[in-house]
């Protein structure tokens, strides 16, 4: 039997929620506002969207973002799945050591390791660009993916695999026919989250992209800082829709199938 | 504690046990609680005497816990009044009421030690450090937990947790202690043990206990008086003996124990009270609920332990019957017999009384006239075959 809530806390919660949405709603409103100075509501327009759509910089940045997201996701998945399978059979001590490394890839300030990579690439004369961004993204994205896969594997029952082996399946066949199917939803969620994290990242993308490879968030950041035009709002809405969509899909999969992604979906979001 | 009237207990039972002129410890007046359209407590009028061990029993959903929580101040009544020692506390917040509760799952604070749990309420009352120490120690001794002060609740067994919860409430010396199925989470053996301890503690501290349980045996073994509840109403109020031997309706009769049941009608009066005509038995004397008229449909019952083998004395009703089943339960034997008209009767005997009786034997059985108890038949129950021991459909 729940005690009735004191009214003020409900009112307060509603105010907080309104505050959470107000800035987003304003960006959306600005993105369809005719007024170039963004001071008053001058009527509805799609022109900023069409301007953004025809902006070559935006198109190019979008291409870079997609490229980076796909590549870092693929590499992260390989790392996460192999690391997860290893982790499942590893000794407690080995696990602890590797868990520490995974954990520190998430908690270390991104500024620090992104700049470390920046220095390393300079030292080794490796050009900045899409490849360098991918390397940086994989460092932390693969850590999240690994946690998702490990969590799922930890709750998975060995019995099915033992039964398959008992029925004559080779280890590879066991993996293909039993382990992988059970892991598939977790892999799908890890993939979507990886793509989102990569797509949303600013710091590593900015430090490692160099002058020629600008991702969409980096472009937006530059536009906000240097020449703010209403077009930014339209690009921003586009960015929000993309990230929100992939999060929603990941969330739906996570809700319907066992994935071990609950903690990462909620808490692990890298937000720097 | 005076018992209710010997026979008729059907009038509203307020104040049955409270001496005139003395303020009751708890008085509930027209108490009602609705959840939307659902009436959890329909109307409860009740007075509980000072120092009484009072139990509310009934099946789940009967309103007993809601009533208790209204006394505790954890649920607001929709209507009615609650008084403790004559003071109206209906609108007093829970933390200011002079009553304390032992919760069903104990609700011990997991982050505090046993000592801190017991001291919780004293600290809220700004009792001095030294006094807290002595009172907590006293209380832990009373419940037999001296030495476990520094343990956390998670380190205690269920029985120990229950005793901490008891100590935590008692240490505040409440006017009334409310207990919400405090033994429900324990196994049978532990329960029996703690029942005795609860009774002893209540006797020692002399505080009024209001006890809620669905287990009538538990309630009977400890209580001075019980209230049997159903559908948010008190069905019967009285001493355990009263309720057991003189139930006012079929629900109470069923709830408090197994009985042999026959339907029939009142035909007249007798020395025992009434004369009733029962299916398969005929006209026999019976005691019963007051105020029934000749021609009224009745349900008559005899408890299995009132049925005896080969009775000879006068004042007994006898029938011949054939043994169809015998089950030995250690000290007791339950014997199922068939009376003429293919009706079954269950008889409960001490093992020594059974003699050479075997399945298939024919014998004489009977019961004292006053052991047959008649009450107004519930038309619905009469139609449906009852599943009770020994009760056979007409």
């Amino acid at each position, binding site marked *: 039997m729940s005690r009735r809530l004191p009214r003020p806390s409900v009112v307060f919660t509603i105010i907080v929620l309104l505050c959470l949405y107000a800035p987003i709603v304003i960006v959306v409103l600005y993105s369809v506002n005719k007024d170039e100075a963004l001071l008053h509501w001058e009527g509805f327009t799609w022109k900023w969207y069409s301007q953004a759509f025809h902006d070559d910089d935006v198109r190019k940045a979008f291409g870079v973002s997609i490229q980076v997201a796909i590549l870092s996701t693929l590499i992260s998945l390989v790392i*996460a799945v192999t690391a997860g399978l290893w982790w499942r059979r590893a000794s407690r001590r080995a696990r602890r050591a590797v868990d520490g490394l995974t954990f520190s890839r998430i908690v270390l300030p991104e500024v620090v390791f992104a700049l470390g990579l920046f220095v390393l690439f300079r030292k080794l004369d490796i050009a900045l660009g899409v490849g360098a961004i991918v390397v940086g993204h994989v460092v932390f994205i693969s850590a999240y993916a690994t946690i998702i896969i490990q969590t799922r594997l930890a709750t998975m029952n060995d019995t099915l695999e033992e039964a398959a082996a008992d029925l004559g399946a080779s280890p590879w066949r066991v993996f293909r026919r039993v382990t992988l199917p059970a892991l598939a939803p977790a892999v799908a969620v890890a993939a979507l989250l990886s793509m989102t994290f990569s797509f949303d990242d600013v710091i590593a993308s900015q430090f490692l992209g160099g002058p020629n490879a600008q991702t969409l968030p980096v472009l937006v950041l530059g536009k906000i800082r240097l020449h703010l035009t209403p077009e930014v709002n339209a690009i921003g809405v586009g960015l929000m829709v993309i990230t929100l969509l992939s999060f929603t899909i990941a969330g739906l999969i996570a809700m319907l199938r066992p994935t071990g992604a609950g903690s990462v979906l909620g808490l692990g979001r890298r937000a720097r | 504690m005076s018992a209710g009237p010997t026979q008729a207990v059907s009038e509203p039972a307020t104040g049955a046990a409270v001496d005139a002129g003395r303020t009751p410890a708890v008085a509930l007046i027209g108490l009602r609680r609705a959840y939307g359209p659902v009436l959890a407590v329909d109307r409860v009028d009740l007075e509980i005497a000072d120092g009484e061990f009072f139990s509310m029993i009934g099946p789940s959903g009967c309103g007993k816990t809601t009533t208790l929580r209204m006394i505790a101040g954890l649920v607001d009544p929709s209507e009615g009044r609650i008084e403790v020692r004559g003071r109206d506390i209906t609108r007093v917040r829970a933390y200011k009421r002079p009553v304390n509760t032992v919760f069903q799952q104990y609700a011990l604070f997991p982050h505090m030690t046993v000592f801190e749990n017991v001291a919780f309420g004293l600290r809220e009352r700004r009792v001095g450090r030294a006094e807290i120490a002595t009172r907590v120690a006293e209380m832990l001794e009373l419940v037999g937990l001296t030495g476990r002060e520094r343990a956390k609740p998670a380190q205690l067994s269920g029985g120990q947790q229950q005793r901490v919860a008891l100590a935590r409430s008692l240490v505040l010396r409440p006017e009334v202690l409310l207990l919400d199925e405090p033994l429900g989470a324990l196994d049978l053996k532990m329960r029996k043990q703690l029942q005795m301890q609860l009774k002893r503690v209540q006797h020692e501290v002399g505080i009024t206990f209001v006890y809620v349980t669905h287990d009538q045996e538990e309630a009977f073994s400890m209580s001075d008086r019980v209230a049997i509840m159903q559908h948010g109403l008190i069905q019967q109020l009285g001493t355990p003996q009263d309720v057991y031997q003189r139930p006012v309706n079929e629900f109470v009769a069923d709830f408090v124990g197994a009985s042999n049941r026959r339907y029939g009608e009142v035909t007249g009066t007798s020395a025992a009270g009434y004369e009733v005509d029962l299916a398969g038995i005929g006209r026999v004397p019976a005691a019963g609920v007051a105020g029934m008229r000749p021609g009224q449909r009745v349900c008559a019952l005899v408890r299995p332990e009132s049925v005896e083998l080969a009775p000879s004395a006068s004042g007994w009703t006898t029938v011949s019957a054939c043994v169809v089943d015998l089950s030995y339960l250690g000290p007791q034997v339950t014997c199922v017999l068939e009376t003429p008209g293919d009706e079954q009767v269950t008889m409960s005997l001490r093992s020594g009384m059974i003699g050479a009786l075997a399945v298939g034997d024919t014998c004489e059985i009977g019961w004292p006239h006053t052991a047959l108890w008649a009450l107004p038949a519930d038309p619905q129950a009469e139609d449906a075959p009852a599943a009770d021991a020994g009760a056979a459909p007409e």
Partner: protein
Amino acid sequence: MQTTRPAAAQTTPPGAEQAPSRAVRGLGRHTLALPSLGWTVLFFVAPLVLLVLYSFGTRNVLTYEVEFGWTLQNYSDVWHGLYIDALLRSLALSAAATFACLLIGFPVAYTIARAGRRMQLVLLLLVMVPFWTSFVVRTYGVFNVIGDRGPLQQLLKALGLVGGDIHLLFTPVGVGIGIVYTYLPLMILPLYVALERIDPALLEAASDLGARPVRTLLRVIVPLALPGIVGGCVLVGIPATGEYVIPQILGGGKTLMIGNVIADQFLEIGDFPFGAALAMVLTAIVMAILLLVRARADRGETVTS
């Protein structure tokens, strides 16, 4: 059973596991750790080691090349006004923002935790959805709101809370507002998880034993929600300390927080050794906080279990 193709050619190499000899099988099992370990060592540990080395090195003023050495000069330079200011400001701003998140988040989390099952889900979603939109754009949203002629100013004036103009954008307060806004969901979630687990019977018991609502909050709810409070503070405080994007947008051109100062040393000024020293100080602070929290949590655990 058949032998599969060599494991090295596959992304998923359990084929290696069934190699005949024990030694090889052991090796095969550990090959699974290779992609992860390799990437981590090459692109995470190595750059950090390089930064550590740099932080003790010197910069050739003419060529901008880093010369390795064992000087502590870079670390002592950290104590110079400008840098120590930025560091302290970052810590203070992060602490203040974390505390603000806790103050705002606690009642919200409590309300959610005490709502009906369905409502809880809806409210949690409402809290999380803004968090799932683009980080840059959300910060930009705050930029719009707290701007000099933005809605916040207008609201405050309309309510009569401020007389003249106040400037929030490009000030530490503005950055703080940005941090609170962006990280609030990270505070609410662990708080909710902790609060939701508290048995309502405990609150009833506290009330029954004579504790007023405020006392119940302090003596029962807060202690029991402590893991959630600590968790939320770590989730907000750690990334906030090294925050880079929010000060970039809401702090204007001024280098307000340590993250920006460090980045400037590398990207604008080109003083790698000093930047490395600053980065190491930030890393040390973050790690120290985490270890402290971890140690306390471990101790708490042994007490309760």
